[in-house]
């Protein structure tokens, strides 16, 4: 059944709509919890439905900014958002997006589609390999230390960053209860934007950078990332809308599911220990890294850097890679749902013992 069809825009089947709704839901769940996620599955998923790459990116952007808006408002109610830091990082991230997109375009023109894919996968593997393993190791250490309720320690690097006073550049941020030079925040925002333009998930740099370099508590970092995502998504949508590339139907179908998810993810953050943000983020990053690493031989073979692979091997590697992406998102969603249910039950039990009101929103 042709469910939706319009001129130069792709036709959508009913099954595609259901699939996008479900992936949108899980992506929203993860975004509400760790501040980003979902895009790494949504963009290739749309492309597999016959949506042109640029339209898939544009439509993903157009669902991202309203989702981030709803999520950041929700988490601001819980006192988790540093709006000022989000805006400062968001503006520099926007610059990073523009430069990153330009770099992508240049690589595509020079090395073609395969070269561009190889560049994206290599960035995925390097960034997620370094940052993901660090985040996961940190979460593992906290879990094994047994001090789950202890306030998060500010890293030595963050203490050093805060200690540098450069006149005329210092800003106070409530999440850090400290001043920091914008000369440190600008490159961090810029890198977040560059990554967003390259692999669609800037939060894989933005959130760890806020935690480890600026010393922002994990829950506040993940919530503040939603403000950055809103600014980047809004800027990106304007850019693509000017080119007429946004398929609003695709964006709103994904948004339908993702707004259900983002509410749950945001609620989940009020029931869990702070280190859970690192657990979910680290696990997703490592699984996504595996997914992208698997297809690197395909691109190397097409560029004739290694001996050619046969078609069935290429198809198998690409299928395993896409399956791993879906698995990464699903595992993240499962951990969040488990943590939410576990946290709610524990709270309910505590409430029954104390006979006090349970919760307010």
């Amino acid at each position: 059944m042709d469910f939706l069809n319009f001129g130069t825009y792709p036709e959508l089947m009913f099954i595609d709509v259901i699939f996008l709704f479900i992936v949108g839901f899980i992506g929203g769940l993860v975004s509400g919890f760790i501040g980003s996620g979902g895009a790494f599955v949504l963009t290739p998923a749309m492309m597999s439905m016959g949506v042109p790459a640029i339209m898939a990116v544009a439509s993903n952007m157009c669902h991202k900014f309203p989702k981030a808006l709803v999520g950041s408002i929700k988490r601001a109610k819980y006192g988790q958002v540093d709006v000022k830091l989000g805006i400062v990082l968001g503006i520099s991230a926007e610059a990073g997006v523009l430069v990153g997109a330009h770099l992508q375009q240049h690589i595509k023109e020079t090395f073609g589609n395969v070269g561009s894919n190889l560049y994206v996968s290599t960035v995925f593997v390097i960034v997620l390999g370094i940052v993901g393993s660090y985040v996961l190791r940190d979460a593992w250490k906290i879990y094994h230390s047994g001090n789950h309720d202890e306030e998060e320690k500010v890293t030595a690097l963050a203490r050093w960053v805060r200690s540098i006073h450069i006149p005329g550049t210092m800003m106070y941020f409530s999440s850090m209860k400290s001043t920091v030079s914008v000369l440190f925040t600008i490159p961090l925002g810029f890198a977040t934007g560059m990554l967003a333009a390259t692999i669609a998930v800037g939060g894989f740099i933005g959130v760890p950078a806020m935690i480890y370099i600026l010393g922002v508590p994990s829950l506040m970092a993940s919530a503040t990332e939603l403000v950055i995502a809103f600014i980047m998504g809004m800027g990106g949508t304007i850019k693509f809308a000017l080119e007429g590339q946004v398929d609003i139907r695709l964006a709103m179908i994904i948004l339908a599911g993702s707004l259900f998810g983002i509410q749950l993810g945001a609620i989940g953050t009020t029931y869990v220990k702070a280190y859970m943000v690192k657990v979910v983020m680290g696990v997703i990053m490592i699984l996504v890294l595996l997914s992208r690493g698997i297809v690197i031989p395909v691109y190397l073979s097409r560029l004739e850097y290694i001996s050619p692979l046969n078609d069935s091997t290429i198809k198998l590697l690409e299928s395993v890679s896409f399956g791993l992406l879906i698995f990464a998102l699903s595992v993240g969603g499962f951990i969040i749902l488990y943590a939410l249910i576990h946290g709610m039950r524990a709270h309910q039990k505590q409430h029954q013992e104390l006979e006090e009101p349970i919760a307010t929103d």
Partner: protein
Amino acid sequence: MEKKKKLLIETVVLGIVSAGLYFSLYYFEDTIMMWSKGYKESGWLFLTPLVVAFIFSAVHGTFTSHFWEFFGIKAKK
């Protein structure tokens, strides 16, 4: 009990409005998509996707919040 009833009514109303928006998007699909592509003819029509996104996020976002709250899923104080 009164609070729960009020929440149910609000959730149902928001759900109907949200569904109405999605139906409108489907029903007026041709016009909306034409406006999205009509940036060359009229300077401001390129804003169509943004306006649609903001309206949907406000209505559907409030609905989904009420939806989970109705089923007892709400934040810890």
